[in-house]
C-alpha cells in the first residue's frame, strides 16, 4: 500500500463513530501503560536515585518538571496540527481533539511552572525571575487559558473552532519561544535543554533512564486523556444537536 493510500485511511478516523469505536478499544491499553510508566518512573526517581552533588535532593524534581514542560509545549503543537486540519478539511473531530487537549496542556504548564518555582527557590534564591524561558512559559499558560475561554464564550461550535484555531496559530509563536528561549537569548537563570539527541549534553545516566520512563508516562497519560476527552466532546456535541432537533420538533 502506498503512503498516500495509508494517509487516506487515516481520514476514516475523522468519522466520529469510527473514532469512538477505535478509541474505546485502545483506551484501556493507554490508561494501564500510562499508570505503569508513571508509577515505575516516579518511584524509581524518588526512591532509588542519588542526590546531585550540586543540587542535592532537589534533583528529584526533574522527574516532574522536565516531562510536564515537554508536554506543555508539545500539546500546543498537537493542537496546532489538529487546528490546521480543521481549517483545511473541516473535520469536527480534529477541532474537538484540540479543545479536549487544552485543559491537559493547562495542567502540564501549571505543573512545569509550579515545580520550576519550587525548584528555583533553593537553587536560584527566588521563586520567580523574568527570565526568557520562564516568561515565555507564563505567556503560553495565558494562551492556554485564553484558548479555553474562547471556546466557552462562543455559542456556535464552528465559529468557536475557527477562532480558536486562529488563536492556536498565534500562540504557536510562544510555544516555539518557550522551547528555544534559552537559545535565542543566551541569558537568564534557566539552563539549556536537559535532554537532547546529542547524548553528551544529557543529564547523567543514573537520572536519565528514570527520566525517560517518566516522560513516556506523561506522553501515554496525555494520549489516554486526549482520546477519552475527545470522545466526551463528540458526545457533548451530539447532545446539543439532538436537543436542537427536539426543540424544532416540539
Amino acid at each position, binding site marked *: 500500500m502506498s503512503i498516500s493510500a495509508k494517509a487516506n485511511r487515516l481520514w476514516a478516523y475523522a468519522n466520529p463513530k469510527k473514532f469512538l469505536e477505535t478509541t474505546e478499544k485502545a483506551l484501556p491499553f493507554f490508561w494501564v501503560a500510562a499508570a505503569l510508566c508513571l508509577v515505575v518512573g*516516579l518511584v524509581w526517581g*524518588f*526512591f532509588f536515585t542519588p*542526590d546531585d552533588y550540586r543540587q*542535592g*535532593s*532537589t534533583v*528529584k*524534581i526533574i522527574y*516532574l*518538571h522536565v516531562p*510536564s514542560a515537554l508536554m506543555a509545549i508539545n500539546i500546543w503543537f498537537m493542537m496546532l496540527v489538529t487546528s490546521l486540519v480543521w481549517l483545511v478539511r473541516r473535520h469536527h473531530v480534529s477541532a474537538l481533539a484540540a479543545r479536549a487537549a487544552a*485543559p*491537559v496542556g493547562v*495542567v502540564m504548564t*501549571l*505543573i512545569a511552572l*509550579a*515545580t520550576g518555582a*519550587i*525548584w528555583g*527557590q*533553593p537553587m536560584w534564591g527566588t521563586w520567580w525571575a523574568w527570565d526568557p524561558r520562564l516568561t515565555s512559559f507564563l505567556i503560553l499558560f495565558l494562551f492556554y487559558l485564553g484558548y479555553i475561554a474562547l471556546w466557552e464564550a462562543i455559542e456556535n461550535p464552528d465559529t468557536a473552532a475557527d477562532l480558536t484555531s486562529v488563536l492556536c496559530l498565534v500562540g504557536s509563536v510562544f510555544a516555539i519561544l518557550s522551547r528555544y528561549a534559552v537559545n535565542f537569548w543566551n541569558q537568564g537563570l534557566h539552563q539549556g535543554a536537559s535532554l537532547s539527541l546529542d547524548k553528551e549534553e544529557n543529564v547523567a545516566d543514573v537520572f536519565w533512564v528514570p527520566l525517560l520512563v517518566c516522560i513516556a508516562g506523561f506522553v501515554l*497519560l496525555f494520549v489516554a*486523556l486526549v482520546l*477519552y*476527552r475527545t*470522545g*466526551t466532546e463528540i*458526545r*457533548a456535541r*451530539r*447532545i446539543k444537536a*439532538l*436537543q436542537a*432537533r*427536539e426543540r424544532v*420538533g416540539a
Partner: protein
Amino acid sequence: MMPDLGKYADAVLSAYAASILLLVLLVLVSLWRGRRMRAELTAVENRLKRDG
C-alpha cells in the same frame, strides 16, 4: 524507606504533592465529565426514540 532529602525535603515533597494532586484532579474531572456526557446522551437518545 523514605529517602533522606536533607534540607530540601520541603521543596521536593511539595513539588511531588502539588504535581500528583493536579494530575489526579485532571484525570478525575475528565472521567466525571465523560460519564456525565455518556449518561446524558443515552437519556436524550432514549427520549427521542420514545417520542418518535
